[in-house]
């Protein structure tokens, strides 16, 4: 598809936006209206938003403009229109997880990441579409509507954070938040030609993120460029006593790390990430990117992560087991949609769940329940946990020698809607290069690295635990030397 620039305020760098605001050449209300207008014009085609908060956004914008007039300290994300994946609870704003079960759910509090966005003075414009309860890689599992890829409306945006990636690609929001369990930020970012960062497990609080697989879930930014990702991460990272798995670590200055200098960096490229099943066009783009890193003064060589081929099997057993436990809370008693006229309490549970959950959610609950059930626990769940240890060791060993691990984010560009819905196993294979990273809990970013017949390709840069600074520094240096991230879909 032919691309043309979307002339938008959202193409400005964050520092330029803030300069213009400071010089009174721009107001937060103008920024907010840009977002709302773009959504109104394009979302009929894209389907990225499930709930809009026009009134709330305008009120926030007005208050921020008053603050601007009065002068004083501005938040890190001051005035930037943001979309939030609909599995993060937002006080007073409907949160559905793209499930019929939560069709009517109005949360009574904010997720910590959402609260931190508010403290940083971003403007929330609405809640973003996703695969139901974040289970899926194409966004076709939304109970409401599929999301369409802005680069080709016949193709999927990826998932599960498909709305988060499509909204940024289509210029509907300045940035968005997504969540990543097995690739759900990185894979849609790759398919939609935007930047998506999955932080180290535990860096961003999961409090208020509706749990899918608690040992894997992590919130992160989706943005147009690496600098924005560093700013958003700065705003949302940090220890939270409300999440007992939140890491108590010092938070560095991420934007200060964007020096552009990657000289001397040692990069390992897993041969398993460029092997069988990887589209030759994707492989070509990744090799070009590695050449770019070389010319910037970094060195790369091939490495092996020998247990890569076992990651998908281990992941689906572990994530589904955790999901079957986490989703037991949706029983139709305290919130959500309750089945009508239940015969008794058991009938209430069973019918509320059966009517409320879609097919993929039921399938994963079934798989997880089976894997955890008496007689099968050792063969499936425990075995998968042991394989997880082997996969983590692959990364530990590679990081003894290398600063970063680099490969494709996904084996192919975006596929067509409907192409894979009948075959869950084939769908699961799209995450083959992101899942090992999730199992190891390490940070990774996807950045645009070119196109394959008009469809964006993503480069995945993987770092050591809590070494987001090196990941961002390398991604930023690469991005600064290329122009892939500046291209916008024509949306015709």
């Amino acid at each position, binding site marked *: 598809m032919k691309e043309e620039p979307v002339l938008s305020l959202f193409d400005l760098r964050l520092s330029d936006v803030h300069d213009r605001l400071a010089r009174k050449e721009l107001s937060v209300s103008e920024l907010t209206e840009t977002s709302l207008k773009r959504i109104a014009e394009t979302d009929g085609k894209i389907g990225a938003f499930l709930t809009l908060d026009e009134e709330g956004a305008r009120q926030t914008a007005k208050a921020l403009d008053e603050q601007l007039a009065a002068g004083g300290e501005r938040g890190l994300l001051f005035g930037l229109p943001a979309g939030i994946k609909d599995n993060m609870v937002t006080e007073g704003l409907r949160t559905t997880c793209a499930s019929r079960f939560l069709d*009517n*759910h*109005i949360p*009574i509090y904010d997720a910590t990441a959402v609260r931190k966005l508010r403290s940083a003075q971003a403007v929330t414009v609405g809640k973003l579409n996703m695969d139901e309860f974040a289970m899926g890689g194409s966004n076709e599992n939304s109970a409401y509507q599929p999301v369409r890829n802005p680069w080709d409306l016949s193709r999927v945006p990826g998932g599960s954070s498909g709305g988060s990636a499509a909204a940024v690609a289509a210029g509907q929001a300045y940035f968005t938040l997504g969540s990543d369990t097995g690739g759900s930020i990185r894979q849609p970012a790759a398919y939609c030609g935007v930047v998506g960062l999955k932080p180290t*497990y*535990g860096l961003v609080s999961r409090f208020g993120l509706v749990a899918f697989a608690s*040992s894997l879930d992590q919130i992160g930014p989706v943005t147009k460029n690496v600098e924005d990702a560093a700013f958003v991460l700065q705003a949302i990272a940090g220890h939270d006593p409300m999440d*007992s*798995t939140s*890491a108590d670590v010092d938070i560095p200055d991420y934007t200060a790390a964007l020096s552009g200098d990657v000289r001397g960096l040692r990069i390992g490229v897993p041969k398993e990430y460029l092997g069988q099943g990887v589209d030759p066009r994707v492989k070509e783009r990744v090799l070009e990117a590695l050449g770019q890193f070389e010319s910037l003064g970094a060195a790369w060589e091939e490495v092996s992560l020998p*247990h890569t*081929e*076992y990651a*998908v*099997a*281990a992941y*689906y*057993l572990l994530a589904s087991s955790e999901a079957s436990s986490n989703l*037991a809370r949706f*029983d*139709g*008693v*305290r*919130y959500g949609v309750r089945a009508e006229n239940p*015969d*008794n*309490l*058991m*009938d*209430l*549970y*069973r*019918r509320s*769940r*059966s009517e409320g*959950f879609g*097919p993929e959610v*039921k*399938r994963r*609950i*079934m*798989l997880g*329940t*089976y894997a955890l*059930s008496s007689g*099968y626990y050792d*063969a499936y769940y425990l*075995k*998968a*946990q*042991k*394989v*997880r*240890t082997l996969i*983590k060791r692959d990364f530990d060993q590679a990081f003894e020698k290398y600063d970063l691990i680099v490969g494709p984010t996904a084996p192919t560009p975006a596929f067509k809607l409907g192409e894979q819905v009948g075959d*869950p*196993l084939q769908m699961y294979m799209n995450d083959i290069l992101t899942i090992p990273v999730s*199992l190891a*809990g390490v940070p990774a970013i996807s950045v645009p690295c070119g196109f394959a017949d008009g469809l964006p390709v993503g480069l995945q840069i993987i770092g050591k*635990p809590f070494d987001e600074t090196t990941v961002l520094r390398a991604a930023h240096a690469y991005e600064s030397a290329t122009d892939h991230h500046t291209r916008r879909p024509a949306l015709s």
Partner: protein
Amino acid sequence: MSISAKDVEHVADLARLDLSDEEKDRFAGQLNAILKYAEKLNELDTDGVEPTSHVLPLANVMREDEVRPSWPIEKVLANAPDEEDGQFKVPAVLE
């Protein structure tokens, strides 16, 4: 190992799901395909390998046992499908 329609019924019962006959057939086929793929893990010798349940080196996270403010009842009940006298209401459990 292969999952029969009867196994699917048993698991659905544990998961508190009612499945139609069509769903039972479909899930039996799909779950068998997924579990067959998962048998790939048996190629690996994992004797003596510790399981990883969590990547962070976390032990129990403790805090002081002190009284903190909680949500008011009306907020807690705000999303309840049915409620009465400040409590969630469900069909009678005892005859």
